[in-house]
């Protein structure tokens, strides 16, 4: 029986993945903060304190779902190195690491060329920068003989806060769900397919040593309208009119946005929230002495936590992307959930949790 450690097991994907791996015959241990222990206790999965990853020996497979988070994520380089240390402590040198990353390494609107190879670090939104950095750290310091980097599309399915829940709330309360049209590619991966794929990589796929890249968005060819129209009908509502907003994604559009700001506070906010300028602000905060850095970070509002308005624009930017995230998966794997099955599961979930 394969021993598998799942870092970040208490999250939405993590809990479902642990259950899936266990059902598929693995000996699964979650690696989490103790305060999240109850989330794994509920589904009967053993867990380890992430601050003491050596407590249960080394594992055949380590799946990493974790990434820097928290109120002061501007310090993500330290958090990423902490994660690397954790993975190194858990994985057998001859073993296998499956690291989950994101399609956003190709840009929030998928505006960079898609390659099944390392992507160079660049200044970008904090989430993207930190994901890119962790990918490259793992590639530069492979913690095990085999490293699979799985870049995920938009994770969709029953209980997905980022997409399913967010869309339901937007539809119900009349907030925009798309910037111009809903014709953009949804680039989604159903969470059941995602857990199936990681289980397949961990337990069945006889991959060779070295680094391999996977792009998972098996239902991504469907436009957003496919999901939005069904959900709106199910909730008996009509989608709000298009919003037309989009996050500035190029340096020149960002500069124009800053130029339109009135007053020093507004400019500071723009600098703090900008795709490129926020990256520079974070770099400055990181190199300042702690006390001075702390003052600056408070003044600019966190140096890394985007304002709610920016998150809104980012959501619409992702939904408005007209670029398909092209799947690239092991040929031996077949997704168990079809588009219709995915929708039916979401519809059942909407009813179960009280939307109707």
């Amino acid at each position, binding site marked *: 029986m394969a021993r598998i450690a799942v870092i970040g097991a208490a999250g939405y994907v993590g809990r479902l993945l642990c259950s899936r791996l266990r059902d598929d015959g693995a000996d699964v241990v979650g690696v989490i903060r103790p305060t*999240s222990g109850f989330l794994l206790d509920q589904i009967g999965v053993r867990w380890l304190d992430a601050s003491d990853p050596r407590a249960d020996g080394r594992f055949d497979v380590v799946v990493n779902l974790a990434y820097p988070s928290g109120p002061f994520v501007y310090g993500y380089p330290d958090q990423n190195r902490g994660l690397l240390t954790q993975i190194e402590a858990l994985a057998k040198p001859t073993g296998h690491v499956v690291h989950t990353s994101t399609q956003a390494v190709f840009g929030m609107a998928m505006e960079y060329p898609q390659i099944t190879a390392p992507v160079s670090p660049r200044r970008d939104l904090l989430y993207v920068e930190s994901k890119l950095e962790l990918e490259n750290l793992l590639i530069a310091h492979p913690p095990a003989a085999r490293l699979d980097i799985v870049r995920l599309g938009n994770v969709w399915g029953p*209980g997905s*806060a980022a997409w399913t829940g967010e869309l339901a709330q937007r539809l119900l309360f*009349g907030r925009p769900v798309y910037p111009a049209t809903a014709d953009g590619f949804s680039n989604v991966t159903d969470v059941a397919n995602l857990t199936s794929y990681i289980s397949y990589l961990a337990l069945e796929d006889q991959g060779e040593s070295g680094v391999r890249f996977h792009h998972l968005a098996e239902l991504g060819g469907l436009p957003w309208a496919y999901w939005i129209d069904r959900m709106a009908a199910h909730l008996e509502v009509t989608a709000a009119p298009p919003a037309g907003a989009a996050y500035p994604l190029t340096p020149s559009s960002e500069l124009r946005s800053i130029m339109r700001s009135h007053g020093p506070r507004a400019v500071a906010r723009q600098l703090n929230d900008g795709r490129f300028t926020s990256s520079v602000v974070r770099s400055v905060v990181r190199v300042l002495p702690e006390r001075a850095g702390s003052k600056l970070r*408070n003044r600019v509002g966190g140096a890394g936590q985007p304002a709610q308005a920016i998150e809104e624009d980012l959501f619409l930017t992702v939904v408005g992307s007209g670029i398909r995230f092209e799947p690239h998966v092991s040929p031996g794997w077949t997704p168990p959930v079809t588009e219709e099955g995915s929708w039916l599961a979401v519809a059942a979930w*909407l009813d179960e949790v*009280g939307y109707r």
Partner: protein
Amino acid sequence: MIVDRQQVAIIGCGAVAEDMYARGLKGLPGVSIVAVCDLDTERAAVVSAATGAPAVPFEEAVTRAGLAVIATPPATHFSLASAALEAGCDVLCEKPFVPTSEAARKLEVVATSRGRALYVGHFRRMYASLRGGRDLLRSGVLGAPKSVTALEGGRFNWQAKSGYTHTDPHGGVLFDAGSHLIDMAMFLLGFDSGPVAVSVNEVERDAPDEPSHALTARLVVTQDDRDIDLRLGLSRFGLLANLIRVECDRGTLEVPIAPGSSVRLRGPDGTLAMSFEAGETTLGGGFIEQLRRITSADGCEELLAHRFIATVQILERLGTGE
């Protein structure tokens, strides 16, 4: 005696103090954080560094301040709020307020006897959608409310520095998210003017006792001969619909738990999302507006402790299972 509420002491230097109170208060014109205090000297030092205020013992903090923010674990709210009132401070107590209606009444007696004001930090009352929904119900356009379904769930990831959310009987989902949710429902219905009668029909939770991480309950809340069937759903395990649904004689009102400006109306002839301009539309905005009202004594009456007695009563009944 009038105290200067713009001179604030933060009592308790956990996550909510650092992430919310320190930042929120620092951004308010004219407001100074004059002291911070915590038994954990490391945590006190962190918040002291973030605010520039000295870390001092409790007794000294409340002598320096006109307003004491009690942001400690719930088990300590009563004793610390009481001591701060006795010391002459106005008090803003973080939710959940206190575990029993008797404790709430005792604190109000202390506040009254000392001529001080006692507030509770239920900042969701500032949300535009909730305030607009309340106005709609008050207008009578939907007829009389008959039943309320209040659902709030999401994977729990609040990293309380003291860990009270997993150990304190008043740190579970009922008193944590539940106190907000119940208060939103009471505010929406206009049941925040005084005590209510509570009849609990059914309670299920994931643990035999509090703290629980998931809970469902059905109860009847009565005030001034108005009976409301209240159905609650709370979870730290996964997402719920995160809304309050009020069934009325002539239609249904749905209000989001999340900050926003809109509600949904459903009637026999159709459905409509309706947006309101007055109020806050972000969590940070709601939190800061609450602090602004209290520190400037402007529109803070609806945050006074007596407005939360119905919430305390319901929590008490559900928490004890009596």
